[in-house]
């Protein structure tokens, strides 16, 4: 238990909406002051976790502990939790000031105090000159800041951010990502952040939790999850393009009962390499290129390589996988096999 408030603990949390089970026995711990990113495909249960922690929905079973206390019976507004919604959910009939003051007025915070908090939040996010604007008079980036400021005025111990950057264009997303990190650093409060964006997941969180089909697949620092995916689902989800997975080993080396994986960047072009392949398509991205290749046995391998290699569709080449970066998974269970248990290298 930490001295700072804002530690969250989910214990065997299960939630179904009608016949659809959104969460299956989820255990997850968010440390106080940490920025945890929940990542996973649509429908994996990320937003459900936020809604349960916020109190918008009730779990079917399991417990939610905030700082050691079960919050099941605590109504949403009494939880020290603020949520930033996807697309922001700003009140369209209120100015920025009205939006920031909304919750404070509902909670009858004295006027002077409420104004002070609204102004402080607006200044922190650089929107103090927009206080008299209405949401439809602002850009997406400005609205995003207002949504964040509206969470700030609550002075919560936990922030829940539901795809906060999803509606911004790529450039703005990059800048806002840095702002979000700065806010987290300044405040030092717990943040749980949901995204389906790879780059956001890798760059934003102290730790990453990968969800799929209502289950937590892996939790850890982003780089560690990327380097050592716990199972086939995580391996197939993280990375763009995702890891090349070959059931039975195939061109990566026979491995009965296992599925071997290698990331596109761990396949090197090498005239003496053991894998023969033909280029099917080239995606030139400026700073790098992705080669989509096919081996004689039909296996498709994506290869990340430098730009300007002069290869075109139809060209033959040979590839060498980095032996230290081969991933082994049990084909049956999908679980990662440690190297010691694996077959010969």
């Amino acid at each position: 238990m930490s001295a700072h408030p804002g530690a969250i603990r989910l214990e065997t949390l299960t939630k179904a909406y009608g016949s659809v089970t959104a969460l299956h026995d989820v255990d997850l711990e968010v440390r106080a002051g940490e920025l945890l990113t929940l990542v996973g495909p649509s429908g994996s249960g990320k937003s459900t976790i936020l809604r349960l922690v916020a109190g918008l929905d009730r779990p079917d079973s399991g417990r939610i502990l905030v700082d050691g206390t079960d919050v099941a019976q605590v109504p949403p507004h009494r939880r020290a939790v603020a949520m930033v919604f996807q697309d922001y959910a700003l009140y369209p009939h209120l100015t920025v000031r009205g939006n920031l003051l909304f919750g404070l007025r509902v909670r009858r915070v004295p006027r002077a105090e409420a104004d002070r908090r609204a102004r402080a939040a607006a200044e922190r996010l650089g929107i103090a000159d927009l206080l008299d604007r209405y949401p439809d008079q602002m850009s997406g980036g400005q609205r995003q800041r207002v949504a964040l400021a509206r969470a700030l005025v609550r002075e919560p111990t936990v922030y829940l951010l539901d795809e906060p950057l999803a509606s911004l264009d790529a450039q703005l997303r990059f800048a806002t990502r840095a702002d979000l990190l700065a806010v987290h650093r300044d405040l030092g409060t717990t943040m749980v952040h949901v995204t389906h964006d790879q780059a956001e997941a890798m760059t934003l969180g102290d730790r990453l939790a990968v969800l799929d089909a209502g289950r937590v697949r892996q939790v850890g620092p982003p780089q560690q999850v990327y380097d050592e995916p716990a199972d086939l689902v995580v391996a197939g989800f993280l990375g763009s393009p995702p890891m090349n997975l070959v059931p039975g080993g195939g061109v990566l080396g026979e491995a009965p009962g296992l599925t071997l994986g290698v990331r596109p960047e761990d396949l090197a072009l090498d005239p003496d390499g053991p894998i023969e392949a033909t280029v099917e398509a080239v995606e030139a991205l400026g700073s790098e290129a992705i080669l989509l290749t096919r081996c004689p046995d039909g296996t498709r391998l994506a290869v990340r390589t430098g730009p300007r290699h002069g290869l075109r569709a139809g060209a033959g080449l040979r590839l060498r996988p980095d032996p230290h970066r081969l991933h082994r998974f049990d084909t049956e269970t999908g679980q990662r096999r440690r190297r010691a248990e694996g077959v010969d290298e």
Partner: protein
Amino acid sequence: MSSRSRRPLTPWMFLAPYGVAVLLLIALPALLNLGYAFTDHTGLTRDPRFTGLANLRRLVADDFFLDSLEASLFHVAVSVPLRLLAAVGLGLLLAAPRPGGRWFRVAVYLPTVIPDVALAVLFLWVLNPLYGPLNQLLGLVGHPGYTWLAEPTTARVGVVLMLLFPIGEGFLVVLAARRLLDGRLYEAAALEGCGPFGQLRRLTLPLLAPVLVLLAVRDTILTLQVNFVPAYVLTDGRPANATQYLPVYIFDHAFEFSGFAYGALLTIVLMVISAAVITVQLLAVRRWRVLR
């Protein structure tokens, strides 16, 4: 060139059928009406003569007109708020999907598709002092009931009651407008501790304000006119002229007493009153910043 010169004509051609109808059926009669108001036209003779302000002088001295005006304003003042309250209340209540909601919505809309006269005849029964269900309901709580259509005040209330039912259009507009509101606004408000009444006051009503203003203006215009049928079928303007609303008074003058001219002037007065009431409403809307 030819396509360019033809293009500006197309929208006008589409507008033409409606435009012609408006011109022939509304603008022209309105103009004639304006002219007749200053003549002695009876609708029977062919040669209306200009009589200057004679009709106007008659209007100023007309005590029955004042009664009629009072009856109309009373009706608008009571009926419009109640009809709005019913339409908005039921619209908000039945907007959320819930089991059986469809049937309740149909039930609310149904009286609107019943012809006015049929509904009025139905209300003759509802308001019947001897065997009408309304008095029987009152009897259940120990009240002796009223002779509804025989007393001035209760007759007016009876008309208001009847017109509380055909509110389907306003109901539909509110239902649709409420369903367009973003559910996440309500979740955000719930997170702030805003309960159902707080959400109604701080979100729903302000967000629906443009629709509510529209409905209020529309219902004012409508209500000043639609009480013709109930007044005619239920009370024929009686008792003691208590339900001699302006449309009834206009009809009586134009077609039963003294001919078109005076009726035409009264029609203009009704229009001016409608405009005045709406102006007051819109000034209030601006004064209280109902719309952003």
